[in-house]
């Protein structure tokens, strides 16, 4: 019996389907010639869970993020994603069109630099509306309405809806990028240093906004950051990487308050106290 049949049978019998991981990463490896990008990484991500991947520059965290979000083909290993019908699919065995559709609808990707995730020469409203059009919305009024609603949720005034993001500050651009990603109500969002390059007051506002959205929408998130304070604030679990390998993983507050690996102890002890 396939997964879908099993779920249907359970539903008929009135038994709630057991919660299963949304994303399952197994032995994921990416090498660049002889150099290791990331090696032998495995983890599960559950619905509504926030996982932080931390490590210093060059530790392989962005390579890992790109491999699990289908932006960079791994050398070996698998990434399974549980689709909305409950069936788990290997994202690298999907048809290209299917994978693209997944990325446009059920997934989001928030880049460190908003320029990489936005179209700078179309209006803020169009940046948000574009993702809706990609999933088949055609009614201009509805799209504009949804765009304005999402701008409000990320604290951008309605009167900026027709402005291009190149006239926005860095913090506003990042909030716009988040709105653009969330408008299709994805279940999984990847974030690469979402607060990098922002000054601290802007960063605090963005983190607070992200925390609220993640819990209100029940989003699962994989967030790459080198900032342990960001990891503590946003994530439930974390993975510490060094030289492409996972050297410690677990509950975020335990890894930060009771670090085991020598490298994690070094990272934690290097945090500047204010």
């Amino acid at each position: 019996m396939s997964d879908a049949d099993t779920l249907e049978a359970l539903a008929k019998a009135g038994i709630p389907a057991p919660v299963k991981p949304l994303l399952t990463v197994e032995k994921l490896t990416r090498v660049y010639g002889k150099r290791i990008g990331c090696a032998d990484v495995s983890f599960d991500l559950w619905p509504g869970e926030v996982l932080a991947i931390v490590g210093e520059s060059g530790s392989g965290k962005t390579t890992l993020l790109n491999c699990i979000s289908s932006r960079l083909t791994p050398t070996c290993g698998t990434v399974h994603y549980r689709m909305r019908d409950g069936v788990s699919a290997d994202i690298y065995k999907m048809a290209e069109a299917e994978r693209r559709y997944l990325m446009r609808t059920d997934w989001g990707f928030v880049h460190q630099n908003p320029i990489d995730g936005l179209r700078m020469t179309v209006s803020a409203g169009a940046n948000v509306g574009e993702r809706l059009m990609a999933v088949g919305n055609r009614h201009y009024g509805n799209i504009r309405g949804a765009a304005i609603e999402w701008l409000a949720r990320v604290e951008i005034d309605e009167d900026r809806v027709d402005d291009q993001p190149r006239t926005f500050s860095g913090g506003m651009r990042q909030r716009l990028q988040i709105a653009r990603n969330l408008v299709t109500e994805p279940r999984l969002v990847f974030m690469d240093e979402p607060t990098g390059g922002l000054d601290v007051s802007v960063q605090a506002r963005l983190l607070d906004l992200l925390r609220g959205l993640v819990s209100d929408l029940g989003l699962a998130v994989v967030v790459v950051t080198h900032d342990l304070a960001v990891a503590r604030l946003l994530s439930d679990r974390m993975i510490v990487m060094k030289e492409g390998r996972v050297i410690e993983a677990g509950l975020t507050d335990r890894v930060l308050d009771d670090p085991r690996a020598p490298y994690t102890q070094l990272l934690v002890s290097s945090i500047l106290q204010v």
Partner: protein
Amino acid sequence: MNTLLVASEVKKTFIMHMRGGVELPVVANVSFSLKAGACAVLGGPSGVGKSSILKMLYGNYGCDSGQILVQHHGRHVDVASASPRLVLEIRRDTIGYVSQFLRAVPRVSALDVAAEPLLIRGVEREAAREQARGLFKELNLPEKLWSLPPATFSGGEQQRVNIARGFITDHPILLLDEPTASLDAANREVVIDLIARKKAEGAALLGIFHDLDVRNAVADHVIDVSAFAAGKAAA
């Protein structure tokens, strides 16, 4: 009486890799149980490992060995070996914790900090805030502070936000790390009263109280942590 938590032969050592791998034994052979409707107190001098024990029960510190069995959703689970997901579920529904210091989140109001444990359980925001307001009133936290983020509050004000956050739920097990350390006499009385009410509701409490008056007022029995001092237990 119903036993809600059993710790047996729990051991904790810190290995400081930054100092050439030196081992700091904290506690060993920690064994005790917590019963519904009673408050146990961890006793012993500073540095003997009282806070570490609380943190292991809450899953914040790992254990080298031993078991921490907790009655969670009608079954027994071991916090010491639980997966991160299970630890989070135990914290949401079974074990509450009032830490010594508040970890303030930028831009989040005192009211929402206190209401958060209820929100995580799916309680509607306004209902959760109403309960937080009730506790703030009882703890004499000035109303003008409620909508402000607690980062700039005094120690005593922050501690009251923390207490409200810890007492707002009906967790069957509640851990208290010096909840009255920076409170005045009137507010200490409020906390003593809150603890008495938790006991009456059938919760099992475990606390660290350096204040003798508070300790005498709430303790049903004292667990002497010096007996678990690492090294001593090895003998």
